[in-house]
């Protein structure tokens, strides 16, 4: 069982018998008062989103889902297509199901697909992915202060803050848990 202090973005819980994932999480607490755990939950079967606030003392059943090793193939108008590496069966996950995870998918990437019966209802990504910067304004000459940053867009359409020395075309490592820049990747 989980308790309130285990709650965080991405945690999967069983609520009313169905698997849910915490899509957004915020902890708030008056200094001397009781903590409130505000969650935006996504029902992993229906995709519906709703808000729920919990108070300390509540407990939660983990949603233990079967995970299958699959490979990401491509995206088409129906969604994102994955292939089971053992059976070669293909399944499709919709954009809504993937949420922000869609930004960290690279062709032929190995991922774990969370299964509910025969349906894929989510993915487990590696902690780090390498993606190419497709758009970022050039480094302004004279901008030498360490720590300056600028926005950059990577090949999947994801936009993040990067150091000002990161140029278009370079490969960068991103932490999929936070969505933050880690480092440039040597090729």
């Amino acid at each position, binding site marked *: 069982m989980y308790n309130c*202090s285990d709650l965080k973005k991405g945690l999967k819980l069983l609520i009313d018998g169905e698997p849910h994932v915490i899509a957004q999480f915020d902890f708030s607490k008056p200094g*001397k*008062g009781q903590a409130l755990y505000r969650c935006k939950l996504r029902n992993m079967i229906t995709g519906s989103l709703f808000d729920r606030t919990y108070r300390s003392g509540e407990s939660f059943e983990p949603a233990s889902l079967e995970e299958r090793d699959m490979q990401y193939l491509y995206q088409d108008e129906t969604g994102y297509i994955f292939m089971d590496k053992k059976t070669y069966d293909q399944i499709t996950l919709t954009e809504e199901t993937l949420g922000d995870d869609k930004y960290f998918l690279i062709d032929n990437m190995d991922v774990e697909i969370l299964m509910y019966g025969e349906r894929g209802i989510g993915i487990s990504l590696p902690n780090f992915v390498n993606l190419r910067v497709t758009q970022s304004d050039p480094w302004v000459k004279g901008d030498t202060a360490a720590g300056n940053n600028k926005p950059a867009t990577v090949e999947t359409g994801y936009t993040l803050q990067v150091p000002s020395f990161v140029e278009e075309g370079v490969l960068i490592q991103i932490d999929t848990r936070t969505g933050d820049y880690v480092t440039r990747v040597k090729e």
Partner: protein
Amino acid sequence: MEPNWQLVRKRETLERRARIIHQIRAFFMNQSFLEVETPQRIPANAPELFIDAVPSAEWFLQTSPELCMKRLLSAGYEQLFQICHCWRSGERGRRHLPEYTMLEWYRSHCDYHQLMADCEDLLTTLVPEGQLLWNNITIDLATPWPRITVKDAFTNYSSISLDDALESDQFDAIITEIIEPSLPRNKPIFLYDYPLEHASLARKKPDHENTAERVELYIGGMELANGFSELNDPAEQRLRFQIEEDLRRQQGKTPYPSPIPFLDELEQLPDCAGIALGIDRLIMLLCDKKTIDDVVLFTPENL
């Protein structure tokens, strides 16, 4: 490998943070406050229902330096301040870290009204321009700042009265979910006079059986500081601690040892007032940062 970018990018904020802490020290030293360093690992914290201490071998990390600082006041030190780390188990959010930096100051021979004036003086010293921009809100720091009792805050902002909220155990929920979001954001505001059961270390307000002289400062809708006219009646303090301990037991929480030397010396405590202010949140305000992660070098997740 490149230098850790998440650390590199914080340099400007961290440099400002260091300067602000230096100014805070100067602010108190200029008024003849004594800076102290009390132990951070202690045998007993003040028992509070909703504050869980981090155990450290057979002792605990401090949840606040309050008890040791009051022992110094009991021994005749009249004006004290401290900037130290405090630990509160399980507190992690956009405005919470389980290890964070606290500023606490105490003055003898005064009450919580003086603390409110101190907060006004401190902020106007740190921000001579007289206004702040935080989260796209311009906050006017011109003094005096508005002061509103908790009772009036319930009347003004909530559909149920303070008494009904206490009766139905909704006090904290209404403060966090209804009152805090409704507070004016363009000026700091003090909420004061709390129900006695929400102020276990604060003195009773004269002629008010169920009200304690406790004050909270909110800036931009964020809780920044909490202070009291300090309770200095040892029998009453023992009783209040007992109530907190009983509530902890009822809720299945770890019981805490009693801070005996503090209680023994409490009869020497002069009339005084003390307040704790979250330094990290202050830096968030002064550097226009949205999350506490932006104003500290390391969070527990990136250690």
